[in-house]
């Protein structure tokens, strides 16, 4: 069960990155490329942290020190 939840969390996090990137770029156009780049970078880093701390830990059992 833990593995399913961890996998769902990882997939959702990266799907959210795609959705956020599309929403930002499609709605704001090329008004300010730096301002658009930063939130995309932020959600990518957030997804990466979720992947490392939740998904990867559960699948490799690193939280148990294995």
């Amino acid at each position, binding site marked *: 069960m833990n593995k399913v939840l961890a996998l769902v969390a990882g997939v959702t996090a990266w799907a959210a990155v795609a959705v956020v990137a599309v929403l930002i770029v*499609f709605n704001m156009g090329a008004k300010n490329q730096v301002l658009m780049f930063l939130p995309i970078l932020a959600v990518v880093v957030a997804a990466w942290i979720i992947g490392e701390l939740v998904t990867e830990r559960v699948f490799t059992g690193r939280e148990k020190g294995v």
Partner: protein
Amino acid sequence: MALLQRTFEKRELRDPGLIRAIFSNTWLAPLWLVARLYLGYQWLLAGSHKVWGEGRWIAASGPDGLALRSYWERAIAIPEQGRPAISYDWYRDFLTFMVNHEWYRWFSWVIALGEVTVGILLIVGAFAGLAALAGAFLNFNFMLAGSASINPVLFVIALLILFGWKVAGWIGVDRWLLPALGTPWQPGRVFRRVLKGRVANEACPVCQMPVDPARSPASAYNGLIYFSCCPVCKERLDEQPARYIAGFGAAIPVPAEG
């Protein structure tokens, strides 16, 4: 004959440490992330103009791809003075063929959705190498059609990401996707599960230690999967597969799961 044999004998030239550190080591993953995000952002931006808004290429009022037709017609035109936009006649003939056969109607969808897809894949880091290759191919075609703009810069970044495909998506979906899927020469968990029912060996071909098909490093050779007991043995097996597998014999079929 001896000259030919000496010239074309199998000899692997290894990359220097610096090249491997840049293109194969995860320590530069943050730099690849920035390059990937910039390139992905540019493709998403370019694609957004083609699928969204007043000047979109597709699903607009009237036939699709009129904007693409105008672009192609401008590219294939030969001015009375000065140089034409396209330098290669074969490429001009190719675009002329597509204009004459009204390929712009469906090609506009390919380009518009292709740009958006490349942008999204690069941003999330899924199949980053393939996405970069597709982007580079688009850049290449735009440049052949006479459009410079930012295409040369994007082309170079795409090539770099292509060379660094193993680590370009490390801070991204490829971190899990590539090990799961693997490559033709090193099957990942998904393909191993599929192949496990067909062929596997029970002992390492190099040192004869027992192998675990679920975890041991795998190599593909002559269409069969061979597991090694450790990365060192896998490296030896990959370097001289014929030597070890000839001594080892045929791969041993194991029963399918379930």
